[in-house]
């Protein structure tokens, strides 16, 4: 049971009554869908580790399993348990707003992590902590454009896109960032088609197989994350198609390896450990009354074959 330390703390708290609550803060987190990929799992681990390392923090860690209804129920539970702060990784950036408002009116500050909620809800949250997914999409577009320019095909290249799970904010924002930025930097590159790969390597591989059949000429593939990017890469390898520039996001270990092998061009370096620690720190800062920027983006730099030496291999 990973809760042993905090559980012991909780017992003491319970025994000595509310005296301790002035110093210890109980922070609840409801995650989107742990176990769907390594990123979220690593995030959860990092979060728990960070919470355990901090003697002032009790953490209640919940997982919505990708289900909005379950996440709203968890929000209610956390409000009901009168936690000091709530961190939420939204399953749906809009659907959670009323629940966030409820926490807000119950006097519980809410920090949104990883993937932001819609603007209507900004009044009710203390801060957002996480990557800027739109920027990530733009950066991926820039990486791709720069590569095309290097290769000298910036005026004729044709690109396909494999997006994340339909409906998820991160997927939507990255696609948006990419779709908007690409024509700005490389106006003559054609985005031929976009199909969802559902954050799923296998699914992405199937989609790519169909693209390869459908289009003789594919110069670049943008995938919503490296998991899907590698799926697409596998499809291209199997079909014996070379010379395609693969750009992803959320650099996974598989993507890093593929880059090292020279098959995969670039991605966005995003550490779930940074993500989790930033979220926890933001919540702690908010509780301590410190000034925090409202949009607390942590940096997610571009990573390509050229500069990958500057980055350690992702652990997930």
């Amino acid at each position, binding site marked *: 049971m990973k809760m042993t330390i905090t559980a012991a703390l909780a017992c003491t708290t319970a025994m000595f009554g509310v005296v301790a609550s002035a110093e210890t803060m109980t922070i609840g987190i409801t995650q989107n869908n742990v176990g769907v990929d390594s990123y979220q799992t690593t995030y959860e681990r990092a979060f728990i580790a960070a919470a355990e390392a901090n003697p002032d923090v009790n953490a209640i860690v919940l997982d919505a399993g990708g289900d909005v209804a379950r996440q709203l129920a968890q929000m209610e539970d956390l409000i009901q348990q009168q936690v000091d702060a709530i961190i939420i990784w939204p399953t749906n950036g809009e659907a959670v*707003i*009323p629940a966030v408002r409820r926490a807000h009116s119950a006097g519980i500050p809410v920090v949104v992590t990883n993937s932001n909620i819609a603007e209507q809800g900004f009044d009710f949250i203390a801060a957002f902590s996480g990557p800027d997914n739109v920027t990530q999409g733009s950066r991926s577009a820039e990486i791709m454009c720069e590569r095309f320019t290097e290769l000298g095909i910036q005026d004729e290249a044709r690109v396909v896109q494999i997006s994340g799970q339909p*409906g998820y904010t991160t997927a939507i924002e990255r696609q948006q960032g990419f779709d908007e930025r690409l024509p700005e930097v490389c106006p003559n590159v054609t985005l031929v088609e976009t199909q969802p790969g559902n954050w799923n390597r296998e699914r992405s591989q199937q989609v790519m197989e169909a693209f390869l059949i459908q289009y003789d000429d594919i110069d670049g593939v943008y995938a919503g994350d490296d998991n899907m990017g590698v799926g697409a890469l596998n499809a291209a390898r199997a079909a014996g198609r070379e010379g395609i520039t693969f750009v992803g996001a959320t650099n996974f270990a598989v993507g890093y390896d593929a880059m090292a092998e020279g098959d995969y061009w670039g991605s966005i370096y995003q550490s779930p450990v940074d993500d989790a620690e930033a979220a926890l720190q933001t919540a702690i800062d908010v509780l301590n009354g410190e000034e925090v920027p409202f949009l607390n983006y942590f940096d997610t730099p571009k990573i390509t074959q050229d500069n990958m030496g500057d980055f350690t291999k992702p652990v997930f």
Partner: protein
Amino acid sequence: MAMHNSKDMIKQGGIWVFILAELVFFSIAGHYWSVSNQAFMDPGNMLLLLKQSAPIGIIALGMTIIMINGNIDLSVGAIFALSAVVLLDSLSWPFMVALGDWALPLAWGFALLTGVTLGAINGLIVWKTGIDAFIVTLASMLGFRGLVFMYNGEQPTSNLNWTLVDFAEAQVLGLHTASWFLIGTVVVLWFVTTRTNHGRNAYAIGNNREAAVNAGIRVGPHFMWNFMLIGFLAALSAVVFYSESGSVNPNDGMLYELWAITAVVLGGTKLAGGYGSIIGTLGGVIAIQLLRKGLGHIGADTQTVNLVIGLILIAVLFLDRQLTRKGKEELKI
């Protein structure tokens, strides 16, 4: 006969005993393992339990009558999603916007109508083609989900209307709006299944379809009514839930059918049909939500929750079988 009745009592009471056991377990375990200093059996928490049971609960109640019929509906998750899309999207139609707050009941109406229509499509296919409901709804689970995507691509459909949210969040006598809808559905369906002609016919059909046909019960239209009912309830569940959340992802409601069936089976309804009760299903729904809540309360992780729910379902089935056994003299087939 006395034996039979006492077994019946055990079977129908079993789910409540199980709920009681869960409460005791989580109260004690929560004392040691929980981070929160709030008691698990806090009244506020129990009221929340009822509210949180509503989305799956309302669907599961409708599933009960379908399963009493000896049918099954796998498409409820997709109906749930499409009704939600209609609810939220219709609020942004120009003429609806012009209506102001009067658009809200109308939007509810559109969403409910969507559910009823989709249910009617299932029912009509089952009735007219004679294909098993399992296959019909397995296929329409895909088809309706396709309609959800067709409506708004992969984008979520959103319309955060604070009037609607306030209504959904309102508490009357301590119970949330969703709880009232759940309770209302329980009362109505309990009444329908135990007191009305339609409800009694549902049992008769599930028990002995041929007999029902011979007795002049029009089985086809009966099925269709029930599929419309569950379509309505799936839409009602969506309407209640999305009034509060204001945004629907096209993937929402996936696997709801499996949770609903799990709840119904835990509540003692037989898959073969002809036997089951609305109150039992309510127990099943509460038992599942309690389990989720409780496991979250004591800090169990996702994989434990999945493992425990799966194994409990099998254990319940096993116990049910042990109860219905006739003992050593039974024919070994």
